[in-house]
């Protein structure tokens, strides 16, 4: 199939010693499947609630890109390493173990939400699990990410920071300032550009001087590579490798080539893309692929998959019920936490 970024993939080194062997144990794979499924169902429920006007504001869905997030976030030490991202931030905390209820409640603007109803879709946080947020200004999270990594190095802790970046943030000054600083300070950080081809509705070639975005790492003397972000195993092999290198104080830049199946946000019908293009990528749906793999390799039976689907469906129903039945923040919360 014609694939954007294929040239970049060909040039990039093989993803950390690729082999036929799955880079997960069977148990890990079932766990990842469960999380990818939960992420998908969570966002489908969010989209539904959005169209019913039960949640407001902006709502940027990650649907289609799950292999990228799952591959990286299954490879860090949960509760120790940090991850930070931009406004497309519902799924990262799910992969890091945040329960769906408080995330859904945040979308509903409820007191029980992860940010007490003050953050909404774009500002989810779970600091105890190392998820340092959802930030709403394009590129704004990148300097913060290097600060997390700087603190780790400052304290001689072997924490790694994963910084997720959209392709739309690559032209931003903060991106380049941060790569430069990470390079100077040898910070334990992995920058992951999730290249989904469009900065909102504008194709990459109109916004970036070069479209093989990982090559920006070359300018900063940084290890860099591209990975097929639709291929869970390729992402996982890459992630394990770059996270280990970052932990040793070698900052890494990865371009994860992926695609969002839906528009930039719920308000975007995505008419700047052809049906054929979207279909080509939908044919590589990471959820369907993973389900097929599990069945084909006898890791899960049809029945077991059905059972997991029932459980996840139930879990999401509970999350929605929790959100709908939770109280709105008290009026007094308006002035809480502006200052310490």
């Amino acid at each position, binding site marked *: 199939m014609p694939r954007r970024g294929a040239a970049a993939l060909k040039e990039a080194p093989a993803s950390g010693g690729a082999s036929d062997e799955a880079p997960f144990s069977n148990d890990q794979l079932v766990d990842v499947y469960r999380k990818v499924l939960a992420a998908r169902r969570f966002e489908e429920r969010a989209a539904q609630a959005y169209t019913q006007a039960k949640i407001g504001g902006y709502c940027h869905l990650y649907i289609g890109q799950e292999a990228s997030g799952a591959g990286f976030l299954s490879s860090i030490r949960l509760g120790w390493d940090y991850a930070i991202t931009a406004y497309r931030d519902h799924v990262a905390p799910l992969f890091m173990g945040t329960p769906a209820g408080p995330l859904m409640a945040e979308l509903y603007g409820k007191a029980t939400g992860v940010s007490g109803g003050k953050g909404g879709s774009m500002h989810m946080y779970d600091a105890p699990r190392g998820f340092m947020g959802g930030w709403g200004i394009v590129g*704004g999270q990148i300097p913060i990410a290097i600060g997390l990594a700087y603190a*780790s190095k400052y304290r001689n802790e072997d924490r790694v920071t994963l910084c997720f970046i959209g392709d739309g943030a690559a032209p931003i000054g903060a991106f380049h300032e941060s790569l430069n600083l990470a390079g100077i300070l040898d910070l334990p950080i992995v920058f992951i550009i999730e290249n989904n081809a469009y900065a909102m509705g504008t194709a990459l070639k109109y916004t970036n001087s070069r479209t093989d975005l990982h090559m920006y790492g070359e300018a900063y003397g940084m290890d860099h590579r591209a990975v097929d972000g639709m291929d869970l195993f390729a992402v996982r092999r890459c992630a394990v490798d770059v996270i280990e290198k970052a932990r040793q104080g070698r900052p890494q830049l990865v371009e994860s080539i992926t695609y969002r199946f839906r528009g930039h946000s719920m308000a975007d019908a995505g008419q700047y893309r052809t049906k054929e293009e979207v279909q080509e990528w939908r044919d590589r749906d990471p959820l369907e692929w993973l389900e097929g793999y599990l069945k084909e390799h006898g890791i899960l039976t049809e029945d077991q998959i059905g059972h997991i689907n029932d459980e996840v469906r139930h879990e999401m129903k509970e999350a929605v019920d929790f959100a709908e039945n939770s109280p709105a923040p008290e009026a007094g919360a308006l002035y809480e936490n502006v200052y310490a």
Partner: protein
Amino acid sequence: MPVIQYREALRAAMREEMERDDRVCLIGEEVGGYNGAYRISEGLMDQFGRMRVLDTPIAEEGFTGMALGAAMVGLRPIVEYMTWNFSLVAYDMIINHVAKARYMSNAQFGAPMVLRGPQGGGQQLTAQHSQCVESWYMHCPGLYVVSAATPADAKGLLKSAIRNDNPVIFLEHLGLYNMKGEVPDGPDLLVPIGVADIKRPGQDVTLLTYSKMLYPALEAAKALEADEISVEVIDLRSLRPLDLDTILKSVAKTHRAVVVTEDWQPSGMARELSGLIYQHGFDDLDAPVEEVCGAPVPMPYARNLEQLAIPDVEAIKSAVHRTLARPGELAPLYR
């Protein structure tokens, strides 16, 4: 009591706090190997090492955000801007990220950090290097804004700012760094944030000011003694939070107020203060509140023009006289 320079007072504050708390670090342009563009951080890198006194590239957005990330996970960074003018390059990071981190995360983390550096005119540095930024930062919830006028206040306020759990905009004035003053020795000097200081008591007019404008204000007050006008000069020290009690008590006593800022007037600190006095002290006023502010122009280079753009003793005296003008008397023209 030892007499030291304002810059030495700042340095002592940072050194003492870094010795006390190993989470405190200094991040900024020229703070390390160069020993500080204005020599505030002299010797600190030698004492604390390159990771704690960190030289950065000229990339304000990047290093401000880096300090925020570090603050969110437990460090207490001090960010030094070579001048506050350059902080405008990091304005998004300060307003959109630093100020809002605690609120948006519902206090899952905060941003305990101090952003400091010099501002102000008077050294022929012209339009892009002489601005006063207090009003721009005052406006945004989540930030504290403080400004010390004396070496003792500089030390005590900076120490309080470093220990504070909020992001503190700490405004110095380029023209104060060489100023000498008595500063109590030892590590215990803390000037609380949110408390104004009556630098000169008086009966007839309340003069509100801060930072370098304190000095022409005090000089004007002294000169007005000859006219038998007793001026109370209040150094606000902290702009947000503001010590409104001290201001209103003074106005209730004197019934007149003059605000002196180097800041521009529209939407500025002076307008804020006079607005508060009108709102909360209207019945106490015997005259309109006067505002003496920087001329509404980009700072010019020529020495004479620059001097005209910054409030001086004569302008302050005129304003005080205007508040005392009785019906039938013609108020002196002001600019």
